[in-house]
């Protein structure tokens, strides 16, 4: 999303929130896939910090998804079922699977950074828009800013872990 772009109406806002839901679902589903794809030995060898990070990422994404879904519901639109995205992620996981623990961390970092950038641009596009939305503008922005802040923390957490392992 480019700065200076504006969200025109409820329909476009709902569509962008749906994309936010899908981005969260991809992070959640890939975090679970990463863990499942490891052998018993690899799971045993995995650093506790990395296991915690994957678990936390999945939990946080699920929570963000629920907050976005509440907004989408208010706009009389439908969300994208997690099971559907989970199946799509699983279907293509083989082609995009990380090779090792470092790759898993990089994939998580990419997911968190993408989500952060998406919310940052979405907030700017809403702030630049004069449109009246079917949801309270202040609450909408408050929710998105809170999620953005958590994504920023998430980026930092992964970066810290990468640095520790370096």
């Amino acid at each position, binding site marked *: 999303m*480019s700065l200076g772009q504006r969200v025109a109406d409820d329909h476009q806002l709902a569509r962008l929130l749906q994309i936010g839901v*899908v*981005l969260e679902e991809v992070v959640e589903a890939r975090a679970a896939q990463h863990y499942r794809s490891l052998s018993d030995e690899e799971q045993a060898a995995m650093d506790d910090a990395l296991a915690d990070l994957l678990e936390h990422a999945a939990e946080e994404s699920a929570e963000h998804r629920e907050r976005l879904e509440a907004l989408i519901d208010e706009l009389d639109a439908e969300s994208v079922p997690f099971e559907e995205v989970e199946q799509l992620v699983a279907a293509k996981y083989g082609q995009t699977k990380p090779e090792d623990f470092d790759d898993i961390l990089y994939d998580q970092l990419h997911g968190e950074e993408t989500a952060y950038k998406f919310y940052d641009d979405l907030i700017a596009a809403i702030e630049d828009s004069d449109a009246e939305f079917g949801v309270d503008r202040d609450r909408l922005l408050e929710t998105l800013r809170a999620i953005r802040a958590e994504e920023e923390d998430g980026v930092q957490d992964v970066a810290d872990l990468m640095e520790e392992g370096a």
Partner: protein
Amino acid sequence: MNTADQYLKAIYLVQLAEDGPAATGTLADALDVSPASVNEMIGKLEERELVEHEKYKGATLTEAGIERAREVLQTYCIIERFLCNVLEVEDFRGEAKALEAVIDDTVAERLDTIIDRRPECPDCFDAEDDACAFLQEPGTAD
């Protein structure tokens, strides 16, 4: 995808269709903007060495311009496929046009992990149909 990117994509597709430079009028029609706006943007793209412009003939992408235009077209294909196959949006072309300006490459890259895109993308893009030639629309499956 910013405005400059949308111009690069339009020039690329017009060049392919015409098998030659993209004329200002054709670009203005394709982008639904005035010829003056096209000329202004062509000037900016020339400064960035993404386009070469020849008076009375039109705009031709440089190698760097072609490279960027193909990336932009790929992003557009990802958005169309995502809207059509994941969200099952009937007017996926119209919505892709509205969203292409507000979807970042990094977001498209992430959406790309859940869609099926051909290895030859964006060569399979059918400009006349404004969609990938292999895109299967909901309800048209065998």
